[in-house]
């Protein structure tokens, strides 16, 4: 009598419950953590842009400092 109940339960858990669980978290992981190709390229470009702007800014600050040595105090 018990076997009749246990067998469908085990089969249900094993073949429906577990794949469900795995696929559920797999899809969530895929939607949450992935960075698309466009995101990656955009981030690369922004990072490069920020680096170049910072270099330019540093050289501009150096030029201003050569022009007026105590400009940082006045700002």
């Amino acid at each position: 009598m018990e076997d009749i109940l246990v067998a469908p339960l085990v089969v249900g858990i094993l073949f429906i419950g577990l794949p469900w669980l795995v696929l559920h978290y797999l899809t969530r992981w895929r939607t949450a953590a992935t960075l698309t190709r466009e995101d990656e390229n955009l981030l690369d470009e922004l990072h490069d842009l920020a680096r170049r702007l910072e270099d330019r800014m540093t050289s501009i600050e150096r030029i201003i400092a050569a022009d007026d040595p105590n400009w940082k105090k006045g700002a």
Partner: protein
Amino acid sequence: MSASRTKFYLDKQNAKWLGVCAGIADYTGIDITWVRVGTVIFTLLGGFPWTLIAYWVTAWMADNKPYGLYENKEESDFWQGVRQSPARTTRDVRSKLRDIDRRMAAAETHYTSRNSRLAVEIDNLK
């Protein structure tokens, strides 16, 4: 089209065997020694056939790291940060741009206020 920098690669340049541990270290930024020691300890503590199987499957499925994927250390570190947390890296880039904006504004005010100072100096000469 360059290769993806957010993928897992086998790191053959730093490999001891097939480059899986070196790849994990390169991907996550964890020190390579700890990855190897951890793998060995985990294998000895009862993961015996499974870690080996996982190692082989990973070595079989993953691509080799393309040669010259990063131009320099700074770039490689940056992408390691992206893999760890894209949100944090994006915030870092934004704060960098804001910092540049602030410095730019300081330079601008310096030049606009300097003109008035120059005018005062010219007045004094009269």
